[in-house]
């Protein structure tokens, strides 16, 4: 462990000043003047005054720095500089310089604001800056000057002002005549220190003329290291390449000036130098072609290193990677507890938990060390009190075992019951990262209870998830108290349990409580034991028991609940006994289970999760015991029903025919704001949808009762009546952009139809169901809408992701204060009462506070 220094504050940061480097400063902080673009001499040794000059920092291991005397890795590197033959604009300051040029006198360099107004306005500018930042301040100055109408004449020296424009990226024009950087610099020099303050520049740290470069600092070699390829060849960093260009052109410019070359040549070289220096800072300037490698790939210069997703900030600083984490495919295991996660043994042998050796646990920890890193559960490292880390290998094991004593740390393998944070991207939720207890299992996937898929939004079609193991007691405690699965049960979005029974868990309980089965008391005890219930006092002593009795066994004895099932039937639980109604997704399911919410309220998170677990397992075991299979015959319809559906379809077709006929005779009454054709389309769509819905009703009425398919839709475990109707009777209208399919060929949708055919079949109505099969054209239409929706999701996901990112960034530090107001980091009020009603949804029941009940309870 490194020395604890938390108590000693050596220097406290009071404030930070941002400024611009002055040429003098650049020279002072430099250790070398760079004069030649050459990097190495014939022996491969860095050239003195070259870009890889050894004075700029060491890159060879073993060598000591000539400047600071420290070794590689310790020496931070040192700056150099080059003297530019002619001054050059700095691309990042161009806007400021432009503003300064337009706001100051071209002759005397004073601000174009009369003396009597300057104090008042400066104050105003300060206010603007406080509220909206420096850019707004500059804009305000510019506006103020335009308002004053002094742009034509300097209020101090009465000189006439000319119009200065910026020809992007770096050229200034005055009255169509070019202003060279030299001229710009002399104007900047003329601006007085007091006037700098008006612009919000502190002349001590920023003098305007410093924004025109006369000297260019050369970054140390440590930030642009060269790589030695396998072939022994050296490959230089992009920045070194760019700097090489700059130095080369600069030298040529020097030579040409000294030789007295014609002005055109010098100007050309000057422009080239400007280009190189601009791209050195930012290689993505809109108006400039980016500088490229010989291969054509653009160079990554300073701005690109910092900016955007792959830049230093988002990639390296905000996006640090972590140790003690694992990632693999996930798969379900309903026999795990809700707050457990199955971890492959392979992972458990790699990820460790540090445990401090004390007198009392020494023998215990020694066993781990003895087993070493190969045998599970073993240990991979021990850490001495001085922070030295020792790997446990076959050779070192014996010796380390001797050495181990209180104060040491043993990094032992993770074991059952250890704490881990489990996560699935995208982490849009706080429920996307929850704390689980580890359960080491065979095979190579992470296992999780299918009921916790909902908060993670996970399924098992190949999803991968991440696991992190906290390394300190504090982190573990925090994760356990704040992030454990049960603490996340109630969603802050709608105040109901996010976790509930899913799939077989719902249908199983439905079977159980719907009086569909008869079971003996023995069978019931069997079933309950298999889910971990050992209290059977609620089962009657008779030979046969009801499903409701069995279900009641998992409920607490004093539980009371009145609610409604999915079909609207009342559900009543009195003193922990299910008296009336069936259990289905309305009470057991995630996101709607009002029963779960009541359990949570009465018994707390820990008990609720245990009860929920038992209910879920009970459902699964019931389905397992009594079988649950879906068959094609589930959607068989009796002849009467088929005829009825055919009748519905025929009448619908006939009505559509009539409509088309009336349309052709121009006999149709148009809807307001719609054309005749649009009216027809709307009416047809309405008719066909009606026909589909009616046939759906027929299916629900006539479909064989008691089948698994129907049971699933009735219990809310999976599927809805529409899905069944689509299989048994009619798939319905295929719609694109809310209209019938109309594109394809000229005047028709497919070549098998006549032109201008308006009939349902020609515009994507699928008359038959999936079971009887689709006709070729129907299949084609379905393929069209299928593709369309696939495209839509593929395009929408990244868009909504970016939208979410922007929202999250904008709102990340809003906070509810003690006076119930929502405020930002500068204590500005956003809302006067959180969410307009000041309610914490996670403490409500489905967004509603049941005042009546609270009164009842306090009586």
């Amino acid at each position: 462990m490194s020395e604890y220094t938390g108590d000693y504050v050596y220097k406290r940061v009071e404030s930070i000043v941002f400024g611009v480097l002055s040429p003098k400063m650049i020279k002072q902080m430099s250790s070398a003047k760079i004069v030649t673009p050459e990097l190495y001499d014939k022996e491969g040794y860095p050239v003195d005054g070259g870009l890889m000059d050894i004075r700029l920092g060491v890159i060879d291991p073993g060598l000591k720095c000539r400047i600071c005397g420290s070794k590689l890795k310790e020496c931070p590197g040192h700056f150099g500089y080059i003297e530019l033959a002619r001054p050059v604009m700095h691309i990042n300051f161009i806007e400021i310089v432009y503003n300064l040029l337009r706001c100051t006198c071209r002759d005397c360099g004073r601000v174009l604001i009369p003396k009597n107004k300057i104090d008042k306005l400066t104050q105003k500018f300060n206010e603007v800056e406080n509220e909206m930042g420096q850019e707004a301040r500059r804009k305000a100055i510019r506006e103020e000057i335009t308002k004053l109408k002094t742009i034509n004449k300097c209020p101090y020296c009465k000189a006439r002002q000319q119009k200065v424009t910026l020809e992007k990226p770096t050229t200034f024009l005055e009255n169509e005549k070019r202003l060279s950087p030299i001229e710009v610099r002399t104007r900047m020099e003329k601006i007085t220190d007091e006037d700098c303050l008006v612009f919000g520049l502190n002349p001590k740290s920023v003098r305007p003329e410093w924004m025109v470069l006369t000297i260019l600092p050369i970054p140390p070699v440590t930030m642009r290291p060269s790589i030695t390829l396998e072939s022994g060849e050296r490959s230089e960093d992009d920045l070194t390449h760019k700097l090489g260009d700059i130095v080369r052109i600069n030298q040529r410019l020097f030579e040409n000036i000294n030789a007295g070359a014609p002005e055109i040549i010098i100007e050309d070289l000057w422009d080239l130098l400007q280009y190189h220096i601009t791209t050195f800072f930012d290689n993505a300037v809109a108006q400039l072609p980016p500088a490229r490698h010989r291969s054509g790939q653009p160079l990554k210069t300073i701005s690109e290193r910092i900016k955007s997703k792959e830049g230093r900030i988002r990639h390296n600083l905000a996006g640090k990677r972590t140790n003690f984490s694992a990632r693999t495919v996930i798969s379900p295991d309903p026999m795990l507890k809700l707050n457990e996660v199955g971890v492959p043994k392979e992972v458990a042998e790699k990820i460790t938990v540090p445990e401090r050796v004390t007198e009392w646990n020494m023998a215990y920890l020694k066993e781990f060390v003895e087993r070493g890193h190969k045998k599970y559960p073993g240990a991979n490292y021990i850490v001495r009190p001085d922070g030295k880390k020792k790997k446990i290998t076959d050779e070192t094991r014996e010796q380390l075992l001797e050495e181990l004593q209180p104060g040491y740390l043993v990094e032992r393998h993770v074991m059952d019951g250890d704490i881990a944070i489990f996560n699935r991207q995208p982490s849009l939720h706080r429920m996307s990262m929850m704390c689980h207890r580890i359960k080491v299992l065979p095979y190579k996937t992470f296992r999780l209870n299918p009921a916790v898929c909902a908060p993670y939004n996970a399924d098992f079609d190949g999803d991968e998830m991440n696991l992190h193991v906290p390394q300190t007691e504090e982190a573990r405690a925090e994760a356990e108290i704040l992030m454990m699965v049960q603490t996340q049960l109630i969603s802050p979005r709608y105040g109901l349990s996010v976790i509930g029974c899913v799939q077989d868990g719902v249908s199983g309980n439905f079977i159980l409580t719907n009086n569909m089965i008869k079971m003996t008391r023995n069978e019931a005890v069997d079933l309950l034991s298999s889910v971990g219930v050992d209290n059977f006092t609620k089962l009657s002593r008779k030979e046969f028991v009801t499903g409701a009795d069995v279900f009641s066994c998992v409920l607490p004895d004093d539980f009371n609940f009145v609610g409604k099932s999915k079909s609207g039937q009342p559900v009543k639980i009195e003193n922990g006994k299910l008296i009336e109604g069936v259990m289905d997704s309305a009470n057991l399911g995630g996101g709607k289970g009002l029963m779960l919410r009541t359990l949570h309220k009465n018994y707390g998170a820990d008990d609720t999760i245990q009860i929920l677990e038992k209910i879920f397992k009970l459902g699964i075991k019931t389905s397992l015991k009594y079988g649950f299979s879906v068959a094609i015959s589930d959607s068989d319809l009796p002849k009467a029903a088929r005829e009825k559906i055919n009748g519905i379809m025929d009448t619908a077709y006939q009505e559509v025919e009539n409509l088309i006929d009336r349309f052709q005779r121009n006999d149709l009454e148009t809807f307001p704001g719609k054309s005749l054709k649009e009216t027809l389309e709307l009416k047809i769509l309405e008719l066909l949808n009606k026909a589909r819905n009616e046939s759906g009703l027929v299916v629900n009425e006539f479909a064989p009762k008691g089948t698994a398919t129907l049971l699933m839709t009735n219990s809310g475990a999976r599927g809805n009546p529409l899905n069944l109707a689509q299989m048994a009777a009619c798939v319905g209208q295929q719609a694109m952009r809310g209209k019938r399919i109309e594109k394809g060929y000229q005047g028709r949708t497919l070549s098998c139809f006549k032109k201008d055919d308006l009939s349902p079949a020609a515009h994507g109505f699928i008359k038959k169901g999936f079971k009887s099969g689709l006709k070729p054209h129907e299949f084609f239409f379905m393929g069209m809408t299928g593709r369309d929706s696939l495209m839509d999701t593929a395009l929408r996901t990244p868009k909504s992701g970016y939208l979410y990112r922007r929202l999250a960034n904008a709102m990340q530090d809003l906070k509810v204060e003690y006076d119930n107001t929502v405020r930002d980091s500068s204590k500005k009020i956003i809302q006067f009462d959180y969410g307009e009603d000041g309610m914490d949804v996670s403490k409500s029941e489905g967004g509603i506070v049941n005042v009546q009940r609270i009164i009842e309870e306090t009586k």
Partner: protein
Amino acid sequence: MPKKLIIGKHDLIPKHTKLSEKDKKDLFEKYKISLKELPKIYKGDPALQSLNVKVGDVVKIVRNSPTSGESIYYRGVVNA
């Protein structure tokens, strides 16, 4: 003569009223804030047309809310 439309009187515009100096002081006292911490509204905002407010005034806005029936909001009037 057609009636002149006053936007601020429209049904869909929440009710805006000017706060008296005393109410304003009380409000600042209650939340321990100054005008700076208050949400802003432009002086030229159409909802303030008939209100005769000046910069530095505080406007009280009463909105209908689906969750709390009525919600009260305050905005400080700022220039342009």
